[in-house]
């Protein structure tokens, strides 16, 4: 490995640029490198491991980072292979765009100190592997903006990297298998977790017995979390939701209500639980901005997130652009590892012309398909019900960056002629702020569709975000001329 915060001194042309140094990216990068490709591995963080294997910076002197992780050996194995490889690791590189330039890919990133010292970096490559992971989906509810309400995934990330607890008595709420892991981590780190509030019924899994039976690893994982929760006397309450947060300056209690199958409130079922923090999330959504800007085909997952359409070799609908891990649908670290390796093998086969190792490929494909089936079953079980907007009060903020309320979003649809999230954004500014709709996009899309006219609405197109991260104007203005310049951008 050639670790470096600096761009490589060699010409900036690689066989493969891998974006994201989590499980999928590490696996893809080392596989391709071991097969003789020149590889650049870019990540926004100075550390490898991504979200799942997030761990404290060496300076904190944490003795056993693995204590909060299962599958830690998966990570250490990949780390060892990376250290032994010739991969150029470009940490601290925030990739903002991938564009086609003269038959090659140009990966544009900014790097350097925050606040003025940032530089524009361009890495060119013959193939790109997107391993950009996922982000947590949030649905708004009254009180979700109060200090003390944190993302469930965020709470776990805080634990993993800095060993900080969001509170002493933390309710974990939302939907998805992540909630159990978060509750177990919080409890193990010393927090009291009065309840895990899950909007779905876990019975949904029973509808997919084959997917469950084929993934014994996942059952073990559930048993481990279940055991930990039992040990810490954490109650899992299914078909319930936090529908109100109480407190003036920060969280003092939450109201938990029962839900019907469509996530509508059961009247009169509200019950207060005292707590000083709420960790909430509604599953993970694929991080695919770089790909949708390039026009990659997408699909709607069973839990109604948007993921990339991939072929059996992990290639997107755009040639020479591959993806592995969560961008193809959220499925966890082991699936990401398998998909990364599959992509690495396929890219090497394409670029080097030597045949892929059929036996290994077939074995990996089998494992991938099995884990994908399980991920789809879980996603189906945790799909948001259509009734959740009923939790919202008129003055509940949907977009926190621009402080846009439920009422304004509904008025944009009923009074002004918006029919989709994009037009709601134009009329209300919902989604125009710092997060660019990553936080409110799911909610706004749903509200726009529910209140739109009676005619059937087409599946909403994925949001185009040409800047995957904010870019300082000076860095943008200092990009060198692409070479060779495409016809349409010559000056005369």
């Amino acid at each position, binding site marked *: 490995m050639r670790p470096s915060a600096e761009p490589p001194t060699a010409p900036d042309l690689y066989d493969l640029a891998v974006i994201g140094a989590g499980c999928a990216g590490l696996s893809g990068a080392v596989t391709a490198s071991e097969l003789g490709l020149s590889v650049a591995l870019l990540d926004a963080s100075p550390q490898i491991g991504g979200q799942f294997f997030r761990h404290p910076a060496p300076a904190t002197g944490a003795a056993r980072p693995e204590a909060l992780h299962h599958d830690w050996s998966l990570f250490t194995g990949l780390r060892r292979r990376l250290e032994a490889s010739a991969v150029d690791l470009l940490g601290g590189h925030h990739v903002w765009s991938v564009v086609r330039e003269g038959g090659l890919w140009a990966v544009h990133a900014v790097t350097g100190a925050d606040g003025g010292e940032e530089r524009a970096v361009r890495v060119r490559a013959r193939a790109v592997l997107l391993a950009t992971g996922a982000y947590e989906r949030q649905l708004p509810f009254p009180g979700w903006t109060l200090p003390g309400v944190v993302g469930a995934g965020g709470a776990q990330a805080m634990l993993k990297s800095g060993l900080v607890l969001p509170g002493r008595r933390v309710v974990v709420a939302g939907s998805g298998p992540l909630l159990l892991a978060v509750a177990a981590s919080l409890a193990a780190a010393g927090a009291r977790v009065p309840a895990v509030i899950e909007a779905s019924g876990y019975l949904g899994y029973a509808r997919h017995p084959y997917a469950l039976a084929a993934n014994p690893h996942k059952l073990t994982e559930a048993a481990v979390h279940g055991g930990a929760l039992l040990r810490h006397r954490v109650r899992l309450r299914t078909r319930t939701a936090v529908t109100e947060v109480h407190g003036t300056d920060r969280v003092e209690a939450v109201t938990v209500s029962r839900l019907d199958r469509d996530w509508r409130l059961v009247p009169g079922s509200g019950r207060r639980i005292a707590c000083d923090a709420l960790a909430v999330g509604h599953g993970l959504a694929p991080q695919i901005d770089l790909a949708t800007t390039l026009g990659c085909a997408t699909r709607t997952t069973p839990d109604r997130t948007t993921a990339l359409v991939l072929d059996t070799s992990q290639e997107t609908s755009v040639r020479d652009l591959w993806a592995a891990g969560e961008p193809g649908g959220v499925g966890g670290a082991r699936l990401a590892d398998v998909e990364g390796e599959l992509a690495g093998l396929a890219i090497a086969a394409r670029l080097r012309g030597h045949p892929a190792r059929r036996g290994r490929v077939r074995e990996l494909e089998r494992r991938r398909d099995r884990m994908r089936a399980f991920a789809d079953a879980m996603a189906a079980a945790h799909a948001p019900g259509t009734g959740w907007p009923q939790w919202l009060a008129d003055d509940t903020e949907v977009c926190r960056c621009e402080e846009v309320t439920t009422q304004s979003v509904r008025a944009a649809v009923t009074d002004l002629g918006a029919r989709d999230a994009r037009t709601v954004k134009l*009329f209300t500014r919902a989604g125009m*702020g710092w997060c660019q709709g990553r936080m409110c996009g799911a909610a706004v899309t749903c509200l726009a569709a529910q209140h739109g*006219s009676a005619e059937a609405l087409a599946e909403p197109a994925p949001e185009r975000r*040409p800047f995957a991260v904010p870019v300082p*104007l000076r860095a943008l*203005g200092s990009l060198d001329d692409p070479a060779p310049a495409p016809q349409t*951008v010559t000056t005369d």
Partner: protein
Amino acid sequence: MPTRTSSDVIVIGAGVVGAACAYYAARAGLTVTVVDRGPVAGGTTGAGEGNLLLSDKEPGPELSLALASAELWRELAHLLPPQIEYEPKGGLVVASGEAGMAALRGFAAGQESAGVRVKEVPADRLHDLEPHLAPGLAGGYHYPQDAQVMPALAAAHLLRAGGDRIRLRLGEEVTELLTGEGGEVRGVRTASGTRLHAPYVVNAAGTWGGRIARLAGAELPVLPRRGFVLVTEPLPRVVRHKVYAADYVADVASDSAALQTSAVVEGTAAGPVLIGASRERVGFDRTLSTEALRRLAAQAVALFPVLGTVRALRTYAGFRPYLPDHLPAIGPDPRVPGLLHACGHEGAGVGLAPVTGLIVAVCVTGGQLPLDIAPFAPGRFAAKG
């Protein structure tokens, strides 16, 4: 009130031009059905900055149109709710050297004799108007009549202001023009098979106006001219006017297909600074052009060095509808009785929308036109023979 399927006028397109046509027709007492395949402001209106500019127009038919429209916008600012964010902020065109300043002086003199208010700003007074402007500029011109609206909200509120007389049919694409035995327009048919009837159909389909014209068997060579806009993080007001370098005027009038950029920089009520807009003819291609963005960013930072550390949060592309002579098509189509055009405004559609709507309404109801519309005649591109 229009019935479910018949009205006095059908307007195709719910962008700002279509909305203005519907609004003025409704104000004249007509019932209007507005049909759009998407939402309100789903096309170029939603991608525009909302420039209401006189400063970039040379004396001629388009400037006359813009002057009349600027008056109407001032009136609309009182009639429509404040959410349209009308702001008569004024424009400031700057020159970097003496040669540019001399050219600007000649250009401004011509505009002044056409009725535009202009004021020369010497180099040492530029910072009174724009404190963060770069040092060392040669001077500039202030155009107090330049203004701004939030285009999507302007379109939505124009439609709402028409009240019961305007009926919206969104998400319905027009697939056929219905005509009578004499070839006269009778209405339209939409993708779902619905027939809508009216004796007048207005083509306000913007960049897609050529397709609507073709449905009627008429040729109107509307083509897209792509532009990228950069949007920064929200800031306290660091840019007060619409500020741009003198090269912009030459780019607007240019016939070149190649990429041209001269950044127009402006602050907005909501906080972000908008930097627009590049111009290039590449069809309906949304592919990100990092070269266009690089130039916009570099030029904006050259004008306002303070923007260097400011972050661009997003960028988007839009497609200006342009016609070969850079003038819109407004008025009756001589080839198809009952068909009127109101499209091809290139980058000036938001500014020119009210006057376009007024002209269309007058063409339908009869009466005094606000100006000579011969230069905008839709039939002017027909093969001479």
